[in-house]
């Protein structure tokens, strides 16, 4: 078991290394010299070529690529994300507040999806072909086929503009104003969770239906278990096993979705930070945000893997 965890950890570290390398190289390939853009912004100053060169040097952009990469990565290991080239702020400081906001929304969305998704799937599998199954299927199809921003727009139009029940945009941390935080969170959390809920519900439904046809379920019936016990004891655990593996992907979807959702609802989280930095060609910020997001995903994959081994006794670590 412990060797497995160590190997899995090692694997995760390698993935983070590869991702950081890919991101680093991709961003060096970006058109647009950040120094030139920085200069273009500060037109009130006279820029001589020497000054530009000095600025370049001070930002470390004159070193060779491997040197730049290792400097960046080793700084990151120490929790130092460096300074934004464009705006001279400490990325780590900025990132901290953004991560907190995104984490709040992400964890809420994940919690909602992990509870509601399987529940809907199980209900619709058990009541297969009945009214509730059709309702769940339609809901799941909307969740999978409708773009997030469109759902967000629809809900804003309905609940915020027409009914004036919820705020249109913004985010407040719960320890600042809990009531406002909840009211502001409802729509973003629902929009973010909708996709994962829909996918999980669909997967759960088909997984439950598959398990219902297994021999051991027939054995359970033959032993005289009633429907509730067959479902709770024999069907549920087995059909939720594949759902556990799915959750890593769902979390990745939530992290990626935050980019769009935070933009629509004007939430100062990682996603919005990323898009703003992207449009301002602020390399180091994009790099850092991508690596942090990937880190979240890799850790969740790791947790899912370990969890799966705990749920399914057939998995052996060796």
């Amino acid at each position: 078991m412990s060797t497995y965890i160590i190997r899995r950890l090692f694997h995760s570290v390698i993935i983070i290394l590869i991702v950081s390398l890919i991101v680093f190289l991709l961003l060096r390939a970006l058109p647009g010299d950040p120094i030139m853009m920085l200069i273009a912004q500060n037109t009130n100053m006279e820029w001589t070529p020497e000054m530009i060169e000095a600025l370049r040097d001070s930002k470390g952009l004159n070193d060779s690529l491997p040197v730049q990469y290792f400097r960046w990565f080793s700084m990151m290991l120490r929790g130092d994300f460096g300074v934004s080239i464009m705006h001279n702020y400490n990325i780590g400081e900025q990132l901290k507040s953004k991560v907190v906001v995104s984490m709040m929304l992400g964890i809420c969305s994940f919690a909602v999806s992990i509870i509601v998704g399987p529940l809907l799937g199980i209900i619709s599998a058990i009541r297969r072909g009945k009214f509730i199954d059709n309702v769940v299927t339609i809901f799941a199809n909307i969740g999978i086929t409708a773009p997030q921003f469109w759902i967000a727009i629809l809900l804003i139009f309905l609940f915020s503009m027409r009914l004036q029940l919820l705020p249109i945009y913004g985010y407040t941390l719960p320890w600042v104003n809990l009531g406002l935080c909840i009211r502001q969170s409802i729509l973003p959390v629902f929009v973010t969770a909708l996709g994962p809920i829909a996918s999980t519900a669909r997967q759960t439904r088909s997984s439950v239906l598959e398990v219902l046809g297994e021999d051991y379920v027939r054995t359970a019936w033959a032993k005289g278990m009633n429907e509730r016990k067959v479902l709770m004891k024999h069907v549920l655990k087995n059909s939720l096993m594949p759902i556990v593996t799915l959750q890593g992907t769902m979390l990745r979807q939530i992290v990626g979705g935050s980019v769009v959702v935070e933009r629509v609802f004007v939430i100062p989280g990682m996603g919005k930070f990323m898009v703003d930095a992207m449009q301002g060609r602020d390399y180091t910020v994009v790099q850092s945000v991508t690596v942090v997001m990937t880190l979240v995903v890799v850790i969740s994959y790791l947790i899912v893997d370990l969890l799966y081994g705990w749920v399914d006794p057939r998995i052996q670590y060796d």
Partner: protein
Amino acid sequence: MDNSQVFYDSQIPVIPTDEFEVLEDELLPPVNEIKRFFRVLFSRKIVLFAAILLVAIIIIAVFANAVAPFDPYTQNLKNVLQEPDGTHLLGTDALGRDLLSRIIHGARVALLVGFFTVMVAAAVGTTIGLVAGFAGGAIQSVIMRITDAITSIPNLIISLLIVGILRAGVTSVVIAVAAGMFPGYIRMVNGQVMSVKQNDYVMAERAMGASWGRIAFKHILPNCMSPIIVMMTMMLGGSIMAEAGLSYLGIGITPPTAAWGAMCYDGYKYLMTRPLLSIAPGFAIMLLVFSFNMIGDGLRDALDPRLRGTLN
């Protein structure tokens, strides 16, 4: 009770072994595979509906110039933000362009991006998957680790990075969205190659001196065809959504090109007074993605050998 005595000692009448004709049970006519395919595919009404919808959207997109009542790019600043009426069925946008015509032309962009994205992703992913599976060893490990790494980055982020490098535009959006999708094909094809390689008939063929190339085309690609087709249909929907997402963020396909995602974003400013401007293009995205996903579902059922012979 013990019947062993009977079992061993009784004289069973010796059956004469003279020949006689066994009557063949008249066989049921063989199932017509193509007919069966279409029957299973369209057995769910919703799939049939999705197919009709898709065909309609494709026809509209191809003949967009003839179908659209107005030119989607002609601005008319005297006629901005019109309410829907007889001439402008869905009204006009902030630059006085006819919304319906823009949505119709947007279908072209969406389908184009969707098809090309999926083609690029499938071609690149399948090739790399084949290489990884056949090469095995270190090459496979390296390819699969990089694939793992790419699949750890959220799709939208990969696309964002790529569009950033290539600058906005249809081609770069295609490449950007495909970059988020091709690892799926690598994983699937690599898995197929690994499992087919271990089959006895492939080993036998190898022993008789068949080249890997022959095996790839004779056994592995046919085995992958069904899952690849299903994956491609499913990803068509996904790539159209991804493109819309990028365009909504303002880094995908940029104005004035009629892209649904960008139209949603432009219309959002007027949501209070002209909700159709942002809701109608989004609805179009949903219809198209829905029809692809439903057909993908149907294809999966129709191509799944495990479901052969069952009623539903």
